[in-house]
């Protein structure tokens, strides 16, 4: 069946994205992105009935998506960033995942216990960087890596590589 991923976003502006952006502006004025968005990323492992199973889980468990304050979509339906101020912007996604993660383990246990017909779930955070037009994709990608991986106090912010791993999903085709 394969894995099916969803993204969850706040209906209001994400405070973590705003704080990260203001930190970038302060400490990396030369390379900071022009836009930054943050999403919860849930990957459901081998759901028995595919999207139907995932939709059922999401509608049942409001700890995964609280409809009062969050919206969600399947990852392949999620291509357009919220910020569409410049249609020629370059967008790069980076996913940050804890190497050991109680949240994923416990949700896997809950879903199995309640016979949700899914092998497990993996939780991550998806950050979406937007750079104004005029920057090459490779240059933008390198900037994202520099800004994300925190190796020193004055280098990187979004992921501590000792406890977290990052991956860059396929480039966006917007």
């Amino acid at each position: 069946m394969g894995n099916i991923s969803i993204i969850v976003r706040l209906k209001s502006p994400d405070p973590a994205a705003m704080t990260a952006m203001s930190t970038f502006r302060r400490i990396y004025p030369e390379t900071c992105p022009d836009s930054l968005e943050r999403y919860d990323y849930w990957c459901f492992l081998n759901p028995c009935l595919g999207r139907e199973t995932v939709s059922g889980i999401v509608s049942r468990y409001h700890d995964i998506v609280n409809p009062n304050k969050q919206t969600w979509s399947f990852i392949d339906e999620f291509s357009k960033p919220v910020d569409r101020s410049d249609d020629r912007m370059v967008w790069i996604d980076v996913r940050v995942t804890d190497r050991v993660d109680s949240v994923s383990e416990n949700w896997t246990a809950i879903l199995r216990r309640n016979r949700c017909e899914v092998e497990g779930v993996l939780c991550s955070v998806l950050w979406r960087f937007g750079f104004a037009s005029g920057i090459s994709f490779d240059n933008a990608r390198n900037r994202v890596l520099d800004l994300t991986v925190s190796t020193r106090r004055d280098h990187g912010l979004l992921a501590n590589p000792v406890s977290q791993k990052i991956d860059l999903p396929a480039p966006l085709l917007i």
Partner: protein
Amino acid sequence: MKSVPLVAVIQFPGSNCEYETKRGILNSGMDSCIYRWNQCRELRDSQPDAYVLPGGFSFQDRVRAGAVAAKERIMDLVFSEAAGGKPVLGICNGAQILVESGMVPGWERGRIESALAANHISGRSGYLSRWVFLHVAAKAQQICPWLGKTGNGIIPLPIAHAEGRFVFSEENRERASSSAALKYCDEKGIESSDYPVNPNGSFLNLAGIMNDRGNVLAMMPHPERAFWMWQLPPWIPGEWGDRRDQSLRSGSHADTKGPGSLFFMSLADHFRGER
């Protein structure tokens, strides 16, 4: 150094233990002042003898606990003062800031070599608030100015955190034991990696780590919340439970110092040159 040592307590947006921490320092015979994160000049001009980063939720723990505060300009000063040998203590969120600043374990100057990751407990996740028992590593007691008076006993202290699991990269796992300062144990002093003795899955049962020189200590438990004996719950067993009962019987309960005072009294002794 001043005739009465001045210990600076750094308040970030979201810190919430600065006043208890300051009171603990004052009640240990030292002077203390709270400096906000944007009072860099005032902090520099006052030339503190030691620094404490208190607990709380700096910047609401956004992005990752301690990560944003670690990038603040005021940490440049704390970083350079620590490199010069001044004592620095990070409690809970303060410990997360020290880890994200690369000040502990500090094997390579400024490099982030450890993490305080999310608690890893089977069957539950998120925030954990409870009392734990600790023992102090022998080397740490000798070299760390915050631990000189802690003795060989078992120390009960409260923890309250969601991200308190010390993690090291694979290549540094053996080296990590040399940075151990405080370790989780049971009330008899026996270590275990199982919950609840080790409450968060911390590597090597670490509750606190220090730099090689010993002047920078990052600890997850809250000593300021156990400064007085009356702050101990009645079920605490062992030496501190006995002391608590004794202080109740003698009517000195309100004025008797508790296990958390040892950390601040150690620093006062350090400045008096008594160790």
